[in-house]
C-alpha cells in the first residue's frame, strides 16, 4: 500500500505529456467534439469510456493528427498538433495508435510489419530494428509467428503484432482504440495482458475501452465522454464506485 502511494505521488509530480485544451471538431454539420480538455502525465494510464458515437475515436485520431481539429490545442511533448507547420513525423514517432481492426499490412509478415516503419520512415539500421522487432515479438509472446502473414494469425495474435508494430517506433505515448472489441473472450485476455505489462513498465497509455473491469484495474484516471464532451473525470477507483453524474451512473449500470 505504501509503495502504491509513493508511485501515485511520483506520477502526480511528473510533467503533463499530453495536454488537450478546448478541442472542437465537426464533420460537416455534425459536431463531434465540443470543447474537450484533459491532460495526461508521463506514465499515466488514462481510460476514456462513453457511449458509442460520443467521439472517443475521433479524439484519439485528433491527438496524432490523423484528423485535423477545428479549434483548440493539443500538445504532445510540447509539439502543438493544431499547427499548419506541424512536423507529422516528429509527432507520430512519439504517439503510437492501435486500432480495433488491427490494420496490419496483409502482404508482409508479422516481423516485416513491425520493421517497416522504423526502417523506411525513421531510416534506422535494419539489423538493429530487426533485433528490436524480435524482442517485441517475444514480449507479446509471438516469437514463433515472426514469419507468418497476418492472414495466418488469429485476431488476438494480429492485435498483438499491431501493438508490437507501434512499439517498435519507440513512442512515448500509446493509444489503444477499443483494441479488444473485435476479439472473442479467450483472446481478449492475451491482448489485455500485453497492455497491462506496458502500463506496468511506465508507458503512458490512453485507452478507449469497453472492458470496465480492465479499466478499473489498470487506469489511473477515467474520463467519461458523452455527446462530444467529457462529462466526468476522476481517479479510477473512485470513478467506478462513486460517479456523481447521472449519465455516467446510467452508463455504468448498463455496462457493469
Amino acid at each position, binding site marked *: 500500500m505504501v509503495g502504491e502511494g509513493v508511485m501515485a505521488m511520483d506520477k502526480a509530480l511528473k510533467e503533463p505529456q499530453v495536454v488537450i485544451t478546448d478541442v472542437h471538431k465537426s464533420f460537416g454539420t455534425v459536431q463531434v467534439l465540443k470543447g474537450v480538455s484533459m491532460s495526461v502525465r508521463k506514465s499515466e494510464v488514462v481510460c476514456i469510456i462513453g457511449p458509442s458515437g460520443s467521439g472517443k475515436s475521433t479524439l484519439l485520431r485528433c491527438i496524432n493528427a*490523423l484528423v485535423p481539429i477545428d479549434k483548440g490545442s493539443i500538445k504532445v511533448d510540447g509539439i502543438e498538433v493544431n499547427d499548419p507547420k506541424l512536423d507529422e513525423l516528429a509527432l*507520430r514517432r512519439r504517439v503510437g495508435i492501435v486500432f480495433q481492426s488491427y*490494420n496490419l499490412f496483409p502482404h508482409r509478415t508479422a516481423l516485416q510489419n513491425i520493421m517497416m516503419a522504423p526502417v523506411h*520512415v525513421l531510416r534506422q539500421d535494419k539489423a538493429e530494428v530487426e533485433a528490436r522487432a524480435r524482442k517485441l515479438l517475444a514480449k507479446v509472446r509471438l516469437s514463433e509467428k515472426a514469419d507468418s502473414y497476418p492472414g495466418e494469425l488469429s485476431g488476438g495474435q494480429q492485435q498483438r503484432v499491431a501493438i508490437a508494430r507501434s512499439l517498435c517506433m519507440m513512442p512515448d505515448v500509446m493509444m489503444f482504440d477499443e483494441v479488444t472489441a473485435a476479439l472473442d473472450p479467450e483472446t481478449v485476455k492475451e491482448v489485455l495482458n500485453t497492455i497491462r505489462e506496458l502500463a506496468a513498465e511506465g508507458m503512458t497509455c490512453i485507452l478507449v475501452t469497453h472492458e470496465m473491469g480492465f479499466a478499473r484495474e489498470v487506469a489511473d484516471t477515467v474520463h467519461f465522454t458523452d455527446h462530444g464532451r467529457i462529462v466526468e473525470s476522476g481517479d479510477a477507483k473512485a470513478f467506478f464506485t462513486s460517479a456523481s453524474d447521472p449519465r455516467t451512473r446510467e452508463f455504468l449500470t448498463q455496462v457493469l
Partner: protein
Amino acid sequence: MSGSRFFSSPRWGSTPRATLFCRDTGLPFVDLRWPAGILIVATFLLVAFNADAQSGAARSSVYAILWKWTPLLFQGFCLNLLMSALAMAFGTILGALLGLAQISLLPPVRTGSWALTQVLRNSPWLVTIFYIMYLVPFEVKIGGTVIPLPDWIKATFGFTLPVMANVSEIVRGAIRSIPATQWEAARSLAFTRRQTLWMIIIPQCLKRMLPPWMNLYSILTMGTVLANIVGVSESLTIVRDVLASERRTDLLMPMYAYILVWFFLYIYPISVATVRLERKWSVKG
C-alpha cells in the same frame, strides 16, 4: 461471330469476384470453358470436311489449300500477337500513370485524367484507331533522321489508347478497393503518402489487378483483327487476300474457322489461367 456463347457476360460470371472485375474494366469477362473449345474445333472440322466433300476431284482439297497458305497466315497471326504485345506494354505503362493521376491530390490532375480515361474507355476501339491512323503521320523526323511509321505501328498506337484507359481504370479500381484503414494505419506510423502508395497499397493491388489485366490482354488480342479495316496485313487481312486470290466460295468458312481456331488456341490458356488466378486469390483474399 455470336460472341455471347463464348464470352460469359458479367451476369454469368462464375464467381462474384468475376463480376467485380468486369465492373473494374467495363469489359466482358472472357471466361472460356472447355465446351467452347470443343465446339470451335468441331465446327472447324465439320466446316472443312463439308467443304472438302463438295470440292471436286479436279480441284485441290481444302486442307491442301489451307496448308499452302499456312505460312502466310502465320505471319499475319504473328503480327496480331506483336501488335497486342506492344499495345499492352505501352498501354500498361501509360495506363498505370494515368490511373495514379486519377488518385492525385491535385483536383485538375485528378479530373483531367478521369475525363481522359472515361472518353477513351467508352468510345469504340475502331474510332480511336481511325483517329490515330489519320492523326499520326507516316513518318516522323527526329533531328536529321526520318523514322517511318508503318500502318501496323500506327494501328498499335491506336490499340494502346483504349488499353491505357482500361488499365487506368483497373489501377484506380484496385487502389480504391484497398480499405481506408490501411492508409490510416500507414499514416499513423508516419509513412508519407508516396511511401504508403508504393510500399503498402500498390503491392496489395498487384494481385487484384492481374486477372482483369490478363482479361484485357485476351480482349485486345482478339481486337487486333480490327486492324484489317485500316489495311494492316494481319491475319484477317491475309485471309481476305487469300480468299480473293483463290476465288473459291467453299473456302470461305474453313478459312475463317481456321484462323478462329488459332486465336482460340492462343487465348484459351490465358483465359483459363485468368479464371484460376481469380479463384485462387479470391479465396485467399
